């Protein structure tokens, strides 16, 4: 049997998910010029939110998604006002330490509240699958891909055509000039941070019925997001989409075609980070930024 269609289908579905996972980080960096190391913890919180919604209330993750996304936005807004806003003009090392500290704090609060035990959100569709021709499609992955695509397309459309989205891009390009247009730069900052957290929470909801849920699940996903964003070029949404596809396709190809590939595939993100930083530090679509 020819493996290639299966490999392509798997890689495509994964790429959609990776795009949603990394786009929050990309937006946050593009607008605020801060890498939010707590982005992975937002994914983890989203996954737990979906898990508890299903376990305690019997609400399907797809149904609880909108509520959790709004909660993620609110949490992001509060984190920005309470913490991140204080270090906006501080040296990068302060910003990194702050968001890294937030990540550790959130992770340990999760351990205290929910223990370190692994959990999974077992929905009706979690284990269902069907053959399309020769290709096996797992429903949960397909649903994740659909949700991710809808959210990323909505984000891009919002940035492109809405009044506030356009203002957000303007702030990312030149915040002083944006203020001269009558744009409230602080508000755009808080909102972008909120949206970027909301996107990560959505990622968490989507992976809740695919992956195992633990308080530690965020960090590996943060590393992959960073690889994707660096690969595509910091701050470029189109670059992030490309980066997500590159990572997803290389991981899938390695896991299918390299002996014992499933283990090796997890290391590709690191390889890509190192490779791109040496060969083309500004990423595929990135522009150089003066610091």
């Amino acid at each position: 049997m020819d493996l290639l269609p299966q490999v392509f289908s798997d890689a495509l579905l994964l790429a959609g998910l990776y795009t949603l996972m990394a786009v929050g980080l990309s937006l946050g960096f593009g607008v605020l010029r801060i890498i939010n190391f707590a982005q992975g913890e937002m994914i983890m919180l989203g996954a737990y939110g979906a898990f508890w919604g299903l376990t305690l209330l019997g609400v399907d993750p797809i149904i609880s998604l909108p509520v959790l996304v709004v909660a993620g936005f609110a949490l992001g807004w509060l984190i920005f006002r309470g913490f991140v806003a204080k270090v906006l003009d501080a040296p990068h090392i302060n910003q990194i330490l702050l968001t890294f500290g937030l990540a550790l704090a959130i992770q340990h609060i999760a351990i205290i509240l929910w223990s370190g035990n692994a959990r999974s959100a077992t929905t009706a569709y979690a284990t269902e699958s069907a053959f399309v021709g020769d290709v096996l499609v797992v429903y949960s992955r397909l649903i994740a891909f659909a949700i991710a695509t809808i959210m990323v397309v909505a984000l891009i459309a919002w940035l492109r055509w809405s009044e506030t989205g356009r203002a957000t891009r303007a702030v990312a390009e030149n915040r002083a000039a944006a203020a001269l247009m009558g744009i409230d730069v602080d508000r755009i900052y808080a909102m972008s941070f909120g949206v970027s957290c909301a996107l990560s929470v959505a990622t968490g909801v989507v992976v809740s019925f695919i992956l195992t849920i633990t308080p530690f699940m965020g960090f590996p996903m943060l590393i992959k997001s960073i690889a994707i964003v660096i690969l595509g070029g910091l701050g470029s949404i189109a670059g992030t989409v490309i980066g997500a596809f590159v990572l997803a396709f290389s991981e899938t190809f390695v896991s299918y075609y390299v002996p014992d590939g499933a283990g090796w595939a997890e290391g590709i993100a690191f390889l890509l980070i190192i490779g791109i930083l040496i060969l083309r530090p500004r990423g595929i679509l990135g522009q150089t930024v003066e610091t």
Partner: protein
Amino acid sequence: MTPILELINIRVGYGQSVVLQDVSLNLREGEIVCLLGANGAGKTTTTRVVSGLLAPWAGEIRYAGENIATVPAHKRVELGICLSPEGRQVFPNFSVYENLLLGSFSKKARLRRTEMFDEVYGLFPRLAERRKQKAGLMSGGEQQMLAIGRALMGCPKLLMLDEPSLGLGPKIIIDVYEAVASIAKRGLSILFVEQNVQAALMIAHRGYVLANGHIAAEGTSAELRSSPLVQEAFLGKKPSRQDLSEVHRA
């Protein structure tokens, strides 16, 4: 009548260094006033203070009689203060059309968007031709037109232009100044910064000369044109012995 803009004893700088020591100036409604001065005299700093990008250390900024020194920059746009900043600062990855849309971001300007588009495109037909072009790919002169057009999109009552002729060829300078003069005819108040003194004094009603963070001279354009201080500093004429002694006394 209350002046539309009044700076009273403004003192401001960056970090430790003082740029404006003590600057007072005013602008009446419908007036075109130019700020002259050498590099580093504080002209751009003055426009930054009025637009709200820089908070004054001391002094008052009165706009239509109200002190707006603590009003943030984006709210001043809503009040009708628009700046075409130094170095143009257009959004390079945005199209001309999108740059102009951003210019009318404020709620008040959004309502008059169609009307303002017609006006700006009428004033600068070049911008209409290139509306889909990315701003970063346009020539310096076109970017300057865009920066002025973008400021106009905000429906200003007080328009500030920082060096609208900087880096432009002589022909485009004339275009830009013709545009400025026709904007002024609609009763807008204009405060502009200029190195090109000849051009500035041709269209301005009055002017202020900034030197070392002080107002060194002020007067109507005719007065300034004949002032020895201005002639010496900007027009390249060697002052006579008598002129020099006057300057020293001043």
